Structures are given as structure tokens and as C-alpha cells.
């Protein structure tokens, strides 16, 4: 160990559903201010991994540490208060609330545990809400009901609501799935800004390889709940296993193309 505390450390993590192991003995870490991209075929256990780390479902074995603090077995709300905020693959927000109400709720309950909530939202929550609106560019939509937002706006709202909880680690589950080229670029910009301005560590699951290569410092590929590859984005194309299990030849072509055109965006910002 280098002595630098890792943002996230996952050690021998296993999640079983009956006889099937969705995540198998997985070990990896994320360094502070790093962006780790997680890819892999459908059913590889990516979302299950997020669910276990964020405390929504219990690990069968293994350990998870967040900035040196053991969060294995902690409840989702505790994990949130300790500074880990995640988004969901399905565009899950609080549909019956406006954008502002969504963010106020996330800010109020997400930053720390409220043993005795007050009858009004405090100043800090309003400030967190405004900051999240600003950084995601949602400010003009403040009073719109969440149910009426476009797909892109919902994705941004999810991101904003995670940011509003004041996290140190963001975990994004397919943040740009289903978006157009331009929208993906827009999201990438927003995520870069969040990382730069908030000194944020980010883990993201994504199939869109151009997005991953543009943002991620490192990539991990999962297959059947186990690690198939971990390392640089460039090295991924070299790995015969990754190519055969996940990318395929057409995926490989896309990846190479993306690497040539949009490579290194994440690195530039980190520097």
C-alpha cells in the first residue's frame, strides 16, 4: 500500500442469490479523484455490485471500505450519509415532486442523518440544492414537475440529486444510456465539471464505450460477476478475453475509433 487512502476499497466481495453468484469474490479499489469505468455484458453483475456497495442489498461475503471507513453491512441511508451517492439505471427520481423539491429532499436527508427532522428545509439544504441546480444546468427547470422532464433532463436531475447530498464518491449507473451523441457529450461535460469543482471520485457503469474512454482514467470489465480486465482504456482493446466476451469485433472497432477521436478528456481535466 502506498499510504494514500483509497476512496473505495472492495475486497473479496461476493453476492449470491440462491445458488447463483451475481458477484464473485471481486477485489478492486478506486483512488481519490479518479474516474473508474465499469463495463461488461448484460448480466455481468454490475448493478448488483452497485446495490451491494451502496447498501441496498447485503453482501454475502467480503468487505467494502469508503475512505478508510468500513461500510460493509451498513444501510443505504448510512452509506449515503458517509458520502457515497449513487444514481440508478432506470431514470429513477421522485416523480411527484418538482426538480427543486427533489433536490431539497436529497440535500436535506442525504447530507447527514436526521434524527428529528424539522418542519422546514434549512439554509444549508437550499444552498446545496442551488449549487446542484447550477452545476448540472437545471436551474431554468427548477419549478417543473420531475414527471414532465425529458430523458436528458431526468438523467441530469438524478445526477444533481446525487450531488446535492454532498458526496465524496459518486457512483453512476449508466448515466448516458439511451441518449443521443450530443446529449452524451453534454453529460460528459457536466460530469467533468463536477469532478473538477468538487474534487469528486467517480465510479460509472456504462456501455457507451466512447463515453467511457472519454472520461475514465481506468476501466474494469466484469463478466459473470468476476473481473475480466482491469487497467487502462487503451489496454482493453489488447485483451483477447475482453474482445471475445464483451466487445466483439465491432465493439473493438468502435473502441479504437473512440480512442483516436476523444481520448484523454478525463486525463486533461485531472491534471
Amino acid at each position, binding site marked *: 500500500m502506498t499510504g494514500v487512502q483509497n476512496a473505495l476499497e472492495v475486497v473479496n466481495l461476493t453476492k449470491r442469490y440462491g445458488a447463483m453468484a451475481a458477484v464473485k469474490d471481486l477485489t478492486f479499489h478506486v483512488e481519490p479523484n479518479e474516474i473508474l469505468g465499469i463495463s461488461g455484458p448484460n448480466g455481468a453483475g454490475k448493478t448488483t455490485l452497485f446495490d451491494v456497495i451502496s447498501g*441496498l442489498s447485503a453482501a454475502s461475503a467480503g468487505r467494502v471500505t469508503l475512505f478508510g471507513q468500513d461500510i460493509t453491512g451498513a444501510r443505504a*441511508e448510512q452509506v*449515503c450519509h458517509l458520502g457515497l451517492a449513487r444514481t440508478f439505471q432506470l431514470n429513477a427520481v421522485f416523480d411527484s415532486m418538482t426538480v427543486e423539491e427533489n433536490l431539497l429532499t436529497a440535500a436535506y436527508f442525504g447530507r447527514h442523518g436526521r434524527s428529528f427532522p424539522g418542519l422546514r428545509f434549512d439554509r444549508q439544504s437550499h444552498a446545496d440544492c442551488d449549487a446542484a441546480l447550477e452545476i448540472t444546468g437545471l436551474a431554468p427547470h427548477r419549478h417543473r414537475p420531475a414527471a414532465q422532464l425529458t430523458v436528458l433532463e431526468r438523467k441530469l436531475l438524478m445526477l444533481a440529486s446525487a450531488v446535492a447530498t454532498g458526496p465524496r464518491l459518486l457512483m453512476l449507473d449508466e448515466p448516458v444510456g439511451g441518449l443521443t451523441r450530443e446529449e452524451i457529450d453534454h453529460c460528459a461535460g457536466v460530469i467533468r465539471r463536477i469532478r473538477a469543482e468538487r474534487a469528486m471520485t467517480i465510479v460509472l457503469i456504462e456501455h457507451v464505450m466512447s463515453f467511457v474512454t472519454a472520461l475514465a482514467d481506468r476501466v474494469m470489465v466484469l463478466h459473470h460477476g468476476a473481473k475480466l480486465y482491469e487497467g487502462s482504456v487503451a489496454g482493453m482493446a489488447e485483451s483477447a478475453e475482453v474482445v471475445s466476451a464483451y466487445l466483439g469485433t465491432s465493439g473493438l472497432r468502435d473502441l479504437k475509433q473512440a480512442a483516436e477521436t476523444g481520448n484523454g478528456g478525463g486525463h486533461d481535466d485531472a491534471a
Partner: protein
Amino acid sequence: MTRISAQRQDYLLLAALTAGLALLPLTGQSNYVLGQATLYLIWAAVVSQWNLVLGVAGIMSIGNLALFAAGGYAVALLGLYHGVSPWASLPVAALAGLVMALLMGLATLRLRGAYTVVVTLAIAMVMYQLIVTDVDCFRRTPSACYSLTGGARGLTRFGDFGFNDIFGYGAAAWGNFLLALAVLAACMAAAITVVHSPYGRAFQALRDNEQVARARGIRVEKFQLIVFAAAGLFTGLAGAVYAGTQRTFGPQVLGFPTLLFLLSIMIVGGRGRVWGPVLGTLCLALVQENLTSMAQWQGTIYAVLLILILILAPEGLAGGLSRLAALVRARLKGGAA
């Protein structure tokens, strides 16, 4: 442009409405009208709390009348066996409702949807069946023998709020009316405060998406219990006022007809909307009072209303009105520009 917050608007509306209704006894209404109005106020109060649980927090409890019964029986039993006046029993009734609600909340804590329906219904039905089948002799008078809970016939002669003794003969009708109005006002004030506060947002969050609520730091179980507890407190109180004003309390309040009536109020008024229970009660009261010739089809009429609103206008009267208000506001703004 000065903008009054939605919460302040609601408070102002409630104050105006309460003040207006408080004048009703001065308009020389008959005791029948006041008596019916008293009942409707109580039902509106019950639904205002049930709506927090079912409408706002999305917890499928259909056993909330058990909380009402807990409050009512607290008053009736204390009055009958210990001579306690309903006034003194009010806090006990609220507490009884609270305890019952916590029980129900704990039992349904890990359950969702249809399972919650089954358990809450089961709890209310246990209460109903135990009361109805309670025929063991508990209290003997020279002519008859009464069971502890009064069985299917219910309890009577346990006292009332004594407005006739305080203000003179004939005061009972308006006294009861004002008391029921006060309880409804308190219930609505509580509901308004809650829905605009972080509590209300937490309730909404657990209805909208429980997983996201957890991931945003909301302890779901805690807020499930809080919403039940609040509803229990106020519903118990409403039960006490029912017992003290009607001077009788029986297991009928736990039966399906009452349940359906209140459910219709909630759906017609607008599920999850703070003014829904009041609007729904007003609507169903008008229907009930104008269709007395068809009394035997009453349940069917409520049911048909409920079905039509739920299928055709699921946001109910409150939703429709707020849409209308938004439209008018937009029109006015357009005209000013």
C-alpha cells in the same frame, strides 16, 4: 411580484374555511343539518389522516378505521365503566389511536402493496370479529346482561360532551358541530404542515421510489412509522369526538360500508392531495343528502362515483381544481403581458 408560498395559501384557506363554517350554527339550521354536518366533519378529519398514509406516503393501509375505533372505544369504555367524561378521555383516545397505529405500522413495516392491504384488513377484521362475537356477560342489570364491548350492538350511555349542561338546553347540536370543526381544523393544519415540510417530502419519496429514497438518506421504516403515528393520534381523536357527539359507538365503523364511504371520499377528492378529503366529503355529502330517496343504493352510488373518478380523473376534484387554477393564472398572466 410578491408570491405567497403554497403553504401559506393553504393555511389562509383553512382559516377562512374554518371561520366561515363556524358561522353555520348562526344561520338557524335545524339540528338535523347540524348533526349531519358534524358527522361529515368527523369523516373529513379521518380521511385527511388516512390520505397522508395511503395517498401521500403510498402505504396501502385499508385498516385505518381500527385507529378510529380505538379512539371511540377508549371514550366509550372509560365513560361506561369509570364514569370518565369524554373530555377527559380525549388524550387517552388519541393515545389509543397512536398505539393501534404503531402496532399496524410495525406489522406492515417490511410489507408492500397487496400484503399491506391483507395485514391492515386482517387487523381491522380481528378487532371487528372479537367485538361482534363478544357475548360473555360482563355487566348485569336487573333486566339484561351486557358484554364488555357491547358486542354487535355497540355501547351507549357512556356520556357526551355535555354542551347542554354548559350552555343550556339545545346547545348540544352546535356545540358538537363546533367541536368536530375544531378537530377537522386541527387535522387539516397538521396535514398542511406535514405535506409542505421535509416529513411530507420523505413520505412522498417513499411512495415515489423506495430504493431512491434510501439511497438519498431517508430511513424508510422510520417515516413509515411516523406517518402511521401521526394518523393514529388524530384518527383516535376523531373517534373520540364521534363517540362523544353521537353518544353511541359500535363495530359498524369497522365494516365495509364505512370503509367504502371513506375510500370514495378520498378518491373523489383526490388521492394524495391535501384538500382532497375536504372536497371529497363535500361532494359525497351533497350526493348523500340529495339522494335520500335512493338510500338502499347508497353504497352503489358511492362505488360508481369512486370507479368513475379513479378511471377517468385519477387526480380527483382537488387535482382538477388545481389544474383549473393554473390555467386561470396562466390566462391572467398572458392578459397582463
